[in-house]
């Protein structure tokens, strides 16, 4: 019942490392029958089970093309295609670029030795063949090959698994079609900026459309990183959408989300959330927070941005937590900025509680840009200048703009 690749210690002990090399396919290329027989006898006696022969260079390339060996022991002087040429051919072909090739040379022949290395040979074996040296070199190269292939296989499998998971994650995010629909229905335009690392993580945002001139927007940030944070983010996504019928009331909605999260999470697992409802008919953003960053709002014509509240405890902490609702005026021309905790954490401030002010100050001039596209670009570049390449976690910024003009269709 063991897993395909058991996650044991990174490096197996010398005994177990040898397991597997005796099944490796070794190709002995030599035009002299005596040499082929001699080398084969040495290898067999040491326990190697699969040994093939090639009688010259042409034969070697054909056999390698038919079945990829794990190691080639190659003579240099052969009629037709010599060992140097074989080496050159192999290294020119990406399929064989990492195939270990051991070339047999006389110790005294410096020129041959240098040439062999220049052509990409992996190692040299001194002629006349010494049993101990041959076996030691064959073992070292095969062990290394088995080890590296094993690790490469692991990496390829994981990368494919994580790539698939990343696609699933992208599938959770709102689509441009939804932005267009919201823009048409409520005159609110949405843009987002995500600086993603290649890792899966616990960040997520999305839209819950309760009715046509109102919609809900959430931004959540799980504790932890990697796959386990993603597992929790996925279940939070499920919970949020299962509770969509409560989405019109941010306080109640977050309260219920919290109760479910307390039930689902292990102790210590938390998620910070901001959830708000944009009501474009009356021009408000009604929101509740759970240890999230304070929303940043810039009213039309203002120079200074105002900060919203953030007063709820983390979701998942206690079933008794309450998440009071707050209201920001979000009338024509207003711009709203939401951000995840990684943004606040990356800001160079003495204390994290000062981060929202710092961000509001930094973002306000950029938020005043004529278009939302420009505002988004300017805020993110202003942020990049301050943060540099410090952030290791995904940073998510969400920009909302209520159209300034009466007609929601103009852009």
């Amino acid at each position: 019942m063991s897993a395909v690749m058991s996650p044991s210690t990174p490096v197996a002990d010398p005994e177990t490392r040898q397991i597997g090399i005796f099944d490796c396919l070794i190709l002995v290329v030599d035009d002299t029958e005596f040499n082929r027989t001699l080398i084969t006898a040495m290898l067999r006696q040491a326990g190697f089970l699969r040994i093939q022969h090639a009688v010259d260079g042409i034969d070697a390339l054909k056999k390698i093309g038919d079945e990829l060996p794990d190691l080639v022991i190659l003579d240099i002087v052969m009629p037709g295609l010599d060992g140097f040429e074989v080496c050159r051919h192999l290294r020119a072909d990406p399929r064989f670029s990492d195939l270990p090739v051991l070339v047999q040379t006389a110790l005294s022949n410096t020129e041959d030795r240098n040439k062999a290395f220049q052509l990409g040979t992996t190692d040299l074996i001194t002629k006349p063949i010494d049993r101990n040296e041959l076996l030691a070199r064959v073992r070292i190269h095969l062990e290394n090959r088995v080890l590296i292939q094993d690790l490469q296989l692991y990496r390829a499998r994981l990368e494919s698994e994580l790539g698939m998971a990343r696609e699933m994650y992208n599938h959770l995010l709102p689509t441009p079609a939804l932005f267009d629909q919201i823009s048409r229905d409520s005159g609110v335009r949405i843009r987002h900026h995500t600086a993603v690392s290649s890792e899966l993580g616990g960040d997520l945002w999305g839209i819950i459309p309760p009715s046509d001139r109102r919609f809900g927007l959430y931004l959540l940030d799980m504790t932890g990183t990697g796959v386990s944070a993603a597992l929790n983010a996925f279940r939070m996504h499920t919970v949020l959408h299962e509770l969509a019928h409560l989405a019109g009331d941010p306080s109640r909605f977050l309260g219920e989300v919290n109760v479910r999260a307390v039930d689902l999470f292990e102790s210590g697992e938390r998620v910070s959330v901001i959830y708000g409802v944009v009501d474009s008919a009356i021009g408000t953003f009604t929101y509740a927070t759970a240890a999230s960053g304070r929303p940043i709002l810039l009213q039309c014509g203002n120079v200074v941005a105002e900060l919203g509240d953030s007063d709820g405890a983390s979701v998942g902490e206690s079933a008794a937590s309450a998440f009071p609702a707050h209201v920001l005026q979000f009338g024509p021309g207003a711009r709203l900025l939401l951000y995840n905790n990684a943004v606040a954490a990356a800001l160079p401030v003495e204390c994290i509680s000062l981060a929202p002010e710092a961000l509001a100050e930094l973002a306000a001039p950029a938020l005043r840009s004529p278009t939302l596209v420009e505002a988004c670009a300017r805020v993110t570049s202003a942020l990049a200048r301050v943060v540099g390449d410090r952030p290791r976690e995904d940073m998510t910024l969400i920009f909302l703009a209520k159209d300034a003009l009466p007609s929601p269709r103009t852009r």
Partner: protein
Amino acid sequence: MTGMSFASVNIRNARILVVDDNRVNRHLLVAVLQRGGFPNVGMAEDGIDALAKIEEVAPDLILLDLMMPRMDGFEVCRQVRANPARRDLPILVQSSLSSSDDRKHAFSAGATDFVTKPINATELLSRVRIHLENQALLRDLQGYRSRRQTELALARSMQERLLPPPARLAQARADLGLSLSAHFEPSSELGGDFWDLRRDDRDRLIVWLVDFSGHGVGAALNTFRLHAILRQMDLTNFDPAEHLREVNERVCPLLRNGQFATMLVGVVDQANDTFHYASAGAPAPMMWQPGDETPEFGDSSGLPVGILASARYENRDLALPLGGRLFLYSDGASELWTSDDTVLGEEGLLEIVQGQMHHPDDNRFLDGVLNSLAALGSFNDDVTALVLTR
């Protein structure tokens, strides 16, 4: 040691330690290496000095002389290899003695490679490059694996916690007078199998067995979503077919095209001596009673969940009188590839169950089935199996 051309691997900053008791040789080797593009070269003048320098700053490669006063190169090799963290550190041994015995001893003491004195600069640099590139590749791959293993171990423990804890199994056994055992094994770190156990409002036992398409991280993400949905569902007046219909309706909008799950959910109705269940394309449940020679298959046809939001399911019953036993499993068990390259199939699994059904103890029965399966072939999918005895 393979001659890989990994342009991305930066070996120029590699730290090389030259160990030689002869001052002229030391400086010659350092000069060769520096001219060859390795500026970061350190020196040690004997074995003792070498070990001290290695402790100070671990090198990426050691170029080691064999014959030295105080401590020779063989001993240095042995001592370096004694540290598990230095098992893969390349050690190139150099010696003027080209006797076979020396080479044999050097290799068995742990040398990676051998260069012969007088040093041929081209050969030395080629070997150093090959070993350093290989080492860098190995470190990169090992680093990747160890990071992922830590990450996945955490996720794996989360997935295991989705399953009913032993206390809940024990409670169900004690309260309901049933015995019950289960086995869960993802094919890799994470999997798409999931099973659960709860009581409905009439204190009847409800059992779920779910198998998401695919395996690994993606399938596990889906089991977490399904688990979150199941936790939010109302279990009063429990009706398996209706429950499946509702689960399917809620799961459909979440899944991407091509993702689906087979699922079996049933309630152990002790008052009516039945297992009342519905299935969304799950493997057929097996049921038998004391004295039976072969298990009976229950009908388990039905559209997997996640394919069509309007799908409907059917309630079915299997007789489960006192002493009756129920065996549920994921297709990782029945679709095992046997060593002669065929799929075992439900009939093949039936034969295995027949061989084990006489074990009165649930754990022994399950172990027997799983051992027989393991002897036939290798699991390449997640396996869940559950046996319940009234």
